[in-house]
């Protein structure tokens, strides 16, 4: 048994080594490296940020890594599409197929080779970007602790859109205000979408309040960042004034007050040092002033719940209302590990997506010739992107005709199949200094590197076992 396993590992290793050698010696990797180098070195010089450290780093992290990942995605998919197909078409597979190698060993060897190549290339890209990030921070004299962030994101405590939709639905039913001829499912879906996207209005002079419950408490002296995004009338933006008050729920009397009179940007961030909650004088001192570093009476010296209040302090005659989506636009950011660890988590998520693409391409390669496999892969990739949009906007009315029904059914299947792969998009969070959760990373790795590839591999191996690998005379 052990001997059989060892021999199997040797066979898989042999197949993997051949695939790596093929990539290196046919100059595929060299061409890819040239393309990635151009992307990593030239793109940050061409696409300019807004001059702020955040803007510059955002460009570097989201654009450069995004483009590089896109290149790697296509390269992985098409290379995988060639791996079996080219070997079968050139009849080289005949020599390997008459050896005592199982279809699964061939599949695993080639997949691991792609994984290894992607790991090297992705690491090189991330390392190059990280070096540039560090260089820019040093060159511009930015404070690394303020730019290179990894913060946990906490949204306000609110009922879920589903709960709110159900509540609204019940109210409408009691009031006999439900729309006629539309199914309950459709009404609920519309209400749910409305709830998650709903804008609340803060008129001049009006207050708004949110409560935050942190999954991981912040310790004394750790910074808490409030981020608020809003919409308002562009022409009167400069007239908007507001007062934020942040307090640990256990110490409402020790709220920190932050006055803002610059609303020219539609996203505002301000940092509050939690030491401010330790002292009464903090109230008057503003965001971080007044902190004395005294121990709290809370016992563990940490905070789990916060209350945030906003008071629109603009002149009612000259300034206009603010609009914001409570579920999305107001967040509390708390320290969540190092930037480097966050970068590594993003790399792992992207690596797992590449592993999934490699699996997908390999199985297509076992089914079709290289051009057909590449064509099918590209079409399915596009269908995946379109399918996810279709599922989000489709309603019952769209499903009346059979053509639409088929299209929607296909989109739903594609959405279900690819949902986990697309769910974890790490670059937005990385560029905004938001921590990528270990749970998201683990789920991505489990689905994209284990469960889905296993299912895809099973299909690919079944085809390989049944497929004739030679022509006649």
């Amino acid at each position, binding site marked *: 048994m052990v001997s059989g396993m060892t021999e199997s590992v040797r066979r898989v290793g042999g197949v993997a080594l051949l695939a790596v050698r093929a990539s290196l*010696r046919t100059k595929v990797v060299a061409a890819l490296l040239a393309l990635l180098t151009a992307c990593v070195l030239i793109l940050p010089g061409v696409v300019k940020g807004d001059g702020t450290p955040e803007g510059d780093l955002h460009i570097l992290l989201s654009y450069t890594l995004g483009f590089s990942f896109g290149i790697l995605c296509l390269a992985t998919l098409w290379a995988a599409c060639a791996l079996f197909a080219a070997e079968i078409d050139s009849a080289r597979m*005949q020599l390997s*197929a*008459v050896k*005592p190698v199982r279809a699964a060993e061939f599949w695993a060897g080639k997949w691991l080779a792609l994984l290894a190549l992607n790991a090297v290339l992705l690491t090189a890209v991330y390392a190059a970007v990280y070096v540039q990030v560090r260089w820019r921070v040093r060159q511009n004299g930015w404070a690394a602790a303020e730019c290179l962030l990894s913060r946990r994101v906490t949204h306000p405590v609110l009922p879920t859109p589903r709960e709110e939709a159900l509540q609204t639905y019940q109210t409408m039913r009691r009031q006999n205000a439900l729309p006629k001829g539309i199914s309950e499912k459709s009404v609920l879906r519309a209400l749910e979408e409305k709830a998650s996207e709903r804008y609340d209005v803060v008129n001049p002079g009006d207050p708004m309040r949110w409560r935050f419950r942190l999954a991981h408490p912040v310790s004394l002296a750790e910074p808490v960042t409030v981020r608020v995004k809003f919409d308002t009338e562009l022409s009167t933006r400069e007239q908007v004034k507001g007062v934020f008050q942040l307090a640990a729920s256990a110490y409402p009397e020790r709220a920190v007050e932050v006055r803002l009179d610059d609303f020219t940007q539609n996203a505002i961030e301000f940092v509050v040092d939690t030491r401010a909650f330790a002292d009464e004088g903090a109230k008057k001192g503003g965001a971080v002033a007044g902190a004395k570093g005294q121990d709290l009476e809370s016992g563990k010296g940490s905070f789990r719940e916060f209350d945030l209040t906003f008071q629109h302090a603009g002149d009612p005659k000259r300034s206009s209302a603010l609009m914001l989506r409570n579920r999305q636009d107001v967040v509390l950011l708390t320290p969540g590990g190092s930037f480097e660890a966050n970068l590594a988590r993003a790399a792992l998520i992207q690596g797992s997506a590449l592993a999934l693409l490699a699996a997908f391409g390999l199985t297509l390669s076992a089914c079709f010739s290289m051009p057909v496999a590449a064509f099918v892969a590209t079409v399915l990739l596009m269908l995946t992107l379109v399918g996810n949009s279709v599922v989000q906007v489709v309603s019952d009315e769209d499903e009346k005709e059979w053509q639409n029904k088929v299209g929607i059914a296909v989109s739903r299947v594609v959405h279900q199949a690819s949902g986990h792969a697309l769910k974890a998009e790490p670059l937005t969070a990385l560029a905004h200094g938001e921590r990528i959760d270990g749970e998201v990373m683990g789920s991505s790795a489990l689905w994209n590197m284990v469960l889905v590839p296993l299912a895809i591999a099973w299909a690919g191996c079944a085809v390989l076992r049944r497929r*004739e690998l*030679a022509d*006649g005379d």
Partner: protein
Amino acid sequence: MEAGNVIETRGLRKTFLDFWRRPVVEAVRGVDLSVRQGEVFGLLGPNGSGKSTTIKMLLGLLHPTAGQISVFGAQPSDTRVKARIGYLPEVSHLHPFLTPRETLMYYASLFGLTHAAARKRTEELLEMVDLGHAANRAVGRFSKGMARRVGLAQALVNAPELLVLDEPTSGLDPIGCREVKDLVHLLAKGGVTVLMTSHLLADVEDVCDRVAILDRGELRAEGRIGDLLRKPDAVRFLVEGLSDEAAVALRSEIEARVGRSVQQDCPSLSLEAFFLQVVASDGRLRTFEMAPFLKGTEKKEVAGGVVHG
């Protein structure tokens, strides 16, 4: 399966279909074959007769439309069966970017050999096929003959019990052909069963114990070469040192006895033997040295099958 048979087919058929699953050509039509352990069996036939199709079905590369195949008493797709077979296709189909050493290491790894064992066999095989000097050059730059030698070496990397050679002398010069035939003789002497196809009937005649002739997918003849080629009503005398006068007298005597004319000629060398005498007089024709691991009688378990090691 009959005892002592390594390969057995019964009613073997192969019909190739087009994209719409319509039959295009019936390449093999009800072939019954038996290859016995330790013999050199030749599969002959003109182009398109179904030789390669039959071989590919025996190796599990093509699936029969009907009929039964048994190799070592099992299905060809069984990995334990594959562990006991060596295969040299008509065209070598090697990876052009690999060197001969890497090629042999790769195929050795597919048999689950340890790195050390694979390395040892690789070096011995390179020595055996006289490619030690070119072991680090990419195979893609080799002549057809050199590539053929690499192909032959990979077919022997597992010390096979059954060696399947599809046109083994194709692309080789007469010296190479002679060496391959010597190798087949040596392997057969060591107990390896050899199944080969060739267009060159002289090659088949030189090395095969039994042959089968396929034509348009059907088996036309099968048997020992001596039996198939024997003319039972003709007799030939070979006498050395006979004078012309004595030859004339003998011929007249025989003609008088049988009542019809008698053919008389002088035995000559085959063209191959003459060629080798001329071009290989300087010792270019090597005495074929089997790789040590192929000579050994010790057996090792490899990938569920038994190979000599």
